[in-house]
C-alpha cells in the first residue's frame, strides 16, 4: 500500500488564512489543491510536508474572466474548467489543445492550473503553454502581491519563484491583437506524460510576426524557452520554411534524456517537428484574427 508519511492537515477558509498558516508553519508546510501531483510525490517520499493546507474551499480562486486587456485565471481553476472555457478557446486556443491531452478526464476533474505551474515538472504541459503566451503569475504573501513573468517563475526543476509564506493566486494573459496559439504533444498512451510537447503563440501585425513565444515540455530538466527560435521569427513574415528553421533550432536547443519514452535523437527530432507544427497552427489561427482587427 502506498500511503503518504504522517502530516498535519488543515483547511483554509480564506486566502489570507492560508498565507498566515504558511507563514506560521514555515518550510514544512505545503498547499494542497487537486493533489494529483503532490499526493503521488508524498506516497513516494519525494515530498514530505509536515503540514498540508487544503485550499479546495477557496472558491474565490476558481475563475476564468476577462479583465480589461487581460484574461485572469484563478490558481484553483481545474483542468476541466480550462478545457471547457469558450473564452480561453477563442482567445488562447492552445489551452484547449493542451487540456484535451493532459492526464485523463477523471484526473482533470481535480488537478488545477496553480498546482500544475507550482509543481514545475518539466514534462507538464501548462508550464510550456503559459510560457508561450507570456503569462504573468500573481504571487501573494503577507506583504501583498507581486507579479512575475513566466520567464522568471520556474527557477529550476520542481522549483519556482514562490517563496516561503507565499502562494500563487492568479495567472494573467495579455490580450493583444493578431494573436494565435497552438499546443502539440505526442504521448505513448492516454494519460501518460509527453514524449515531447511544443507550445507556440504568435502575434501578427501587417503580415509580420510582431511577437512570438515558443516553449517545450519533457525535453529538458525544466520547461524550455526557445529564445533563439523566437529571435529568428520576430519581424519576419510567417512561412513554412521559416517555421521549419525554427523547428531545427528547437531540436538543437532542447536537452532531452533517454528513457522508456525514447532515445535522445528521437526526442530531439520530435521536438523540432512539434515546434514547426505548433507554429504553423498558431499562425493559421492568428491570420483571421489579424484580418478582423
Amino acid at each position, binding site marked *: 500500500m502506498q*500511503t503518504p*508519511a504522517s502530516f498535519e492537515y488543515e483547511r483554509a477558509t480564506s486566502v489570507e488564512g492560508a498565507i498566515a498558516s504558511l507563514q506560521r508553519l514555515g518550510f514544512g508546510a505545503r498547499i494542497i489543491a487537486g493533489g494529483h501531483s503532490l499526493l503521488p510525490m508524498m506516497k513516494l517520499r519525494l515530498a514530505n510536508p509536515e503540514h498540508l493546507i487544503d485550499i479546495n474551499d477557496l472558491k474565490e480562486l476558481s475563475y476564468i474572466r476577462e479583465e480589461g486587456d487581460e484574461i485572469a485565471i484563478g490558481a484553483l481553476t481545474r483542468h476541466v474548467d480550462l478545457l471547457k472555457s469558450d473564452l480561453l478557446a477563442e482567445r488562447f486556443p492552445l489551452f484547449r489543445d493542451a487540456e484535451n491531452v493532459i492526464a485523463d478526464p*477523471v484526473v482533470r476533474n481535480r488537478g488545477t492550473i496553480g498546482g500544475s505551474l507550482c509543481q514545475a515538472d518539466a514534462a507538464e504541459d501548462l508550464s510550456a503553454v503559459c510560457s508561450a503566451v507570456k503569462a504573468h503569475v500573481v504571487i501573494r504573501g503577507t506583504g501583498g502581491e507581486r507579479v512575475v513573468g513566466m520567464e522568471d517563475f520556474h527557477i529550476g526543476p520542481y522549483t519556482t519563484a514562490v517563496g516561503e509564506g507565499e502562494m500563487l493566486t492568479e495567472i494573467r494573459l495579455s490580450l493583444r491583437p493578431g494573436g494565435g496559439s497552438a499546443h502539440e504533444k505526442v504521448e505513448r498512451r492516454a494519460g501518460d506524460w509527453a514524449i515531447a510537447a511544443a507550445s507556440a503563440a504568435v502575434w501578427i501585425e501587417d503580415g509580420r510576426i510582431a511577437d512570438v513565444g515558443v516553449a517545450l515540455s519533457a525535453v529538458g530538466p525544466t520547461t524550455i524557452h526557445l529564445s533563439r527560435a523566437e529571435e529568428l521569427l520576430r519581424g519576419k513574415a510567417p512561412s513554412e520554411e521559416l517555421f521549419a528553421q525554427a523547428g531545427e533550432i528547437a531540436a538543437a536547443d532542447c536537452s532531452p534524456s533517454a528513457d522508456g519514452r525514447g532515445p535522445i535523437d528521437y526526442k530531439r527530432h520530435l521536438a523540432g517537428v512539434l515546434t514547426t507544427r505548433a507554429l504553423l497552427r498558431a499562425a493559421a489561427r492568428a491570420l483571421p484574427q489579424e484580418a478582423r482587427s
Partner: protein
Amino acid sequence: MNVSISINGAKVSREIEPRQLLVHFIRETPDLTGTHWGCDTSNCGACVVQMDGEPVKSCTILAAMCEGHEIRTVESLEVDGRLDPVQMGFHERHALQCGFCTPGMLMTARALLDENPDPTDVEIRTAISGAICRCTGYVNIVSAVRWAAEYEAAARLEA
C-alpha cells in the same frame, strides 16, 4: 482527526489519520468494499467514485478533503434490487471478465451519461480513457455504455 463524509447519502464518521486516502476510508466502511483499490497512482481508474457528481480517483484524494462533500460509490447504483442502466448494459453486452475495473468503469460511465445522455463512441472512449481494463479490449465496455444510453433514451421517450 475526526472526519465525517456523506457516502451514498449516509453520514460516515470516523477517527482517522490525516494521511488516510479516500479509497481506504470507503473500503473500511462496512458493506462498502465495491470500490476497488488498484494501481495507487491515479493511472488505472479502478477506484473511481463520484464526488459531488463528478468522477474522481479516490486513491489520490485524502479522506479529510471530502468532509462536506457527497461521495457516491458503485453500491449506490442498484436500488431495491433494480440495477442501474449502466449495470444492465455491462450485463447485456458482457463488458467484464475479471470485474476488477468494473466499479470504476460503472461510476465513470454513470457520470458521463448524466452529463451527456447521447455520447458518441469517441466520447465514451475519451471518458473512460483514465480507466484500464486488461480483459475486454474495451469494445464491449463502449458497447455497454452505448446500450445504457439507448435504454435511458427509450425510457425517457416512454415517460
